[in-house]
C-alpha cells in the first residue's frame, strides 16, 4: 500500500473538481468530451478516495469511521459513489453540479480538521459502536442525497413553472425526483433513529451538551420531514424547503464540534 499512502485529500478533491468542471460545461452544451471529463474525473476521484480510505482502514485495523475526519471523507465517498451511479445510469442527467459541491465541501472541511484522528477505543460494546457508526454514516449520506433531490426538485419546479422545458440543465421529471426524495427520506429516518439511539446508549448523556442538543434537534426536524411526506397536502415545494432545513440541521450536528468547541464527542467517535 505504499502507493496508497502517497494519496492525499487534494488528489481526490482535484479529481472531483475536474469532474465538476465537466458537469458545468454540460449545462451550457451537452458535449461528449465534457461528459468524458466528468466521468474520468469522478472515476479517478473515487479510485483515489477508495485507496485512501483503504490505507487508513488497514493502518488502523478497523473501519475508517473512527474520527470526524475519516467520517466526513467516508460520507463524501458514499455520495460520490451515488453520483457515479447516476452519471453512468443516465448519460444526459447533470447530477454532478448538485452532488459534487457537497462531496468536495465535506472533503475540504475534513482537511481543515486537526488532529485528523487516530484509532480510538470507544467507551462501550464494540459491535454496538460499529453498528452505531455505520448507521449514522449511511443515514447522513442519505440525508445529503435527500438534500440534493430537494435542490433538483426546486430547480425543476422553477423550470416547469416558467415553461422552460428545453433547459440545458436536464433533470428527471418532477415525479421521479419526488420518488427519489421519498425513498431516501424513508430509508434515512430509521437508520438515523437507530444510529442515534445506539449512540446514546453507549455513553452517559450530557443533556446540555450542544452536540447532544443539535443531534436531538436534527432527529426532530427529520422526523417532522418524514411526517410531512405522508401528508399529500404538504408535498411539493414546501417539502423541498423543509428538506433543506433538515439537511442544514443534520450538517450542523455532524460538523458542529469545532463550532461548539466540544471536540470530544464527534458523531461517530464511539465506533471502536
Amino acid at each position, binding site marked *: 500500500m505504499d502507493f496508497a499512502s502517497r494519496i492525499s485529500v487534494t488528489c481526490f478533491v482535484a479529481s472531483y473538481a475536474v469532474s465538476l468542471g465537466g458537469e458545468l460545461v454540460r449545462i451550457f452544451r451537452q458535449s461528449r468530451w465534457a461528459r468524458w471529463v466528468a466521468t474520468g474525473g469522478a472515476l479517478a476521484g473515487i479510485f483515489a478516495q477508495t485507496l485512501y480510505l483503504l490505507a487508513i482502514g488497514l493502518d488502523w485495523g478497523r473501519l475508517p469511521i473512527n474520527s470526524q475526519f475519516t467520517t466526513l471523507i467516508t460520507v463524501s465517498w458514499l455520495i460520490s459513489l451515488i453520483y457515479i451511479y447516476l452519471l453512468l445510469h443516465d448519460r444526459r442527467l447533470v447530477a454532478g453540479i448538485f452532488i459534487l459541491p457537497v462531496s468536495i465541501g465535506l472533503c475540504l472541511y475534513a482537511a481543515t480538521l486537526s488532529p485528523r484522528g487516530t484509532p480510538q477505543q470507544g467507551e462501550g460494546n464494540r459491535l454496538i459502536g460499529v453498528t452505531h457508526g455505520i448507521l449514522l454514516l449511511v443515514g447522513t449520506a442519505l440525508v445529503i442525497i435527500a438534500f440534493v433531490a430537494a435542490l433538483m426538485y426546486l430547480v*425543476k419546479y422553477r*423550470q*416547469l*413553472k416558467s*415553461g422552460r*422545458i*428545453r433547459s440545458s440543465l436536464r433533470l*428527471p*421529471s*418532477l*415525479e*421521479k425526483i419526488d*420518488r427519489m426524495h421519498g425513498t431516501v427520506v424513508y430509508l434515512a429516518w430509521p437508520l438515523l433513529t437507530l444510529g442515534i439511539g445506539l449512540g446514546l446508549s453507549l455513553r452517559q448523556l450530557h443533556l446540555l451538551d450542544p452536540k447532544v442538543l443539535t443531534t436531538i434537534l436534527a432527529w426532530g426536524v427529520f422526523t417532522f420531514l418524514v411526517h410531512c411526506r405522508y401528508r*399529500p*397536502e*404538504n*408535498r*411539493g*415545494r*414546501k417539502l423541498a424547503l423543509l428538506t433543506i432545513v433538515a439537511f442544514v440541521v443534520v450538517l450542523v450536528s455532524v460538523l458542529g464540534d469545532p463550532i461548539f468547541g466540544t471536540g470530544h464527542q464527534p458523531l461517530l467517535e464511539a465506533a471502536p
Partner: protein
Amino acid sequence: MKLLCVGLNWKTPVKIREQLSFDAEEAQGVLAKLQDRFPNAEFAVLSTCNRTEIYSAEPTQESSIGVEGLCEFFAEVKNQPLSEFYDYLYLHEDAGTALHLFNVASGLDSLILGEAQILGQVKIAYQQAIDCRTIGKILHPLFQRALGVAKRVHTETSLAKGRLSIASAAIDYLRGVFETFSDKRVLVIGAGKMAELVMVHLRELEPGRVEICNRTEAPALDLAQRMGGHYRPMAELHQALADADIVVSSTGAEEPIVKSADFAKLMEQRRSRWLAVIDIAVPRDFDPAIADFDNVWLWNIDDLEKVRYKTIRSRERELDHALKIIDHETAAFEATMAIKQSGPVIGRLEAGYQEIIEQELDWLLPQLNGLPEDQKEKIRYFAHRLKNKFLHPPKAALRAQAHAGEHHGLLDAFRKLFGLET
C-alpha cells in the same frame, strides 16, 4: 461515372406534386421500365408526399440517358406533358446528386428543417431498389453513405431534436412533471379538432383513464369512442377536475371556465395533489392566476408556441454545422468513387507492364544458360522493381487527381498513352 437526379419537392404546388408521385407498387414498375430501357444504368426512386425523385448512375462519363431523357421518361410514365411541370423540376449531376441526396436524407431539404421521417423514406427507396435489382456499384455506396451522413448529422448536431407541433410540445411539458402515466387520469375539456390532436399524442403516454367533458354530448361521445375515452357531462366539471391529474382544455368559451377563486376550493378538495393543465383555448379557459398555485402547472398556447419557435431557432442555428458535415462527406464520397474509378485503369496498366516483363524475361533467361538459379531470380526481381519504379509516379499522380476530383482528363490520357482502351 455519371450520376443524375431529377425531381421535385415541397416547393412545387401540391396539385403538381400529387400528379407526379408514385406509390410503392408504381415505383417498382418505374424501376423495372427504366432498367429495361437502360440496362447498363442503375436507378432508385424516392417518392413521398413532399417529393418525387429519380436517381440514375452509369459507369461511363457520358450518360446514355441524360437529364433530358430522365425528364421525358418522368413525363411518359406519368402520362403528363413535360412542359406542364418542367419548370418545377430540379436537375443534379455527379457531385451535385450526392450533395442533394445527403441533404435530403439529413432533412435539410425538407419542409420542416431537420425532420427525421425522410430518413426512413430514403431507407425504403434504397431497399426497394435493392429488391428490384436496379442498384449496383455506384448507387449502393451512394445510398449507404447518405444514410451514414444523416445519422452523423443527427448525432453531431441538434437538427432533429425538439418538438415542432403544439400537441407534441404539450407532451414534453407533461413528461417534465410526471414519470408514469398509467396511474394518471386525464381530463379533456372540449371536443374540437385541437382536443383531438392533443389526444392523439396523449395516447403515446398510455394514461390510466381519459375523460372528455363537453357542453354537447354527441361530439364528446364520438371523440371518446374513437380515442378510447369516457364521456363526462359538463355539469360534473368540478368533480372531474378534482379527480384529474392532467387537464387539456380547448373549448370555445368567451370567458374562463375555471376561475381562480373556484380553483382554491378545488385544490383544497384535491389536498394539493399535483395538477398539470394545458390550456390551448383562445380566449383562455383557465384564469391565468391559477398558475400561481403550488403544485399546479398551467401552460397556455403561447408557452407551447414558444417551444415550437425555440425548436425552429435551435435547428436554424445548427444548419451551418450540418452543411459543413455534408460538404465534407460529399467531397469524401467523390474521392472514394474517383479512386474506385481509377483502380481498374491502374490495374490494366500494371497487367500490361507485367506482360511485357514476362515476355522479355522469356527471351532473356534461356540465353543465360550458365547462370545459377539465384542469379536468374535476381534478374526477375530487378525487372519487377524497375516496373514498380517506372509506374509509381503516374500512379501517384492519378491517385492525387482522383482525390482532388480532377481525374477524368488524366484517366483519358492514361488510356490513350498506355493503350488501355477496352
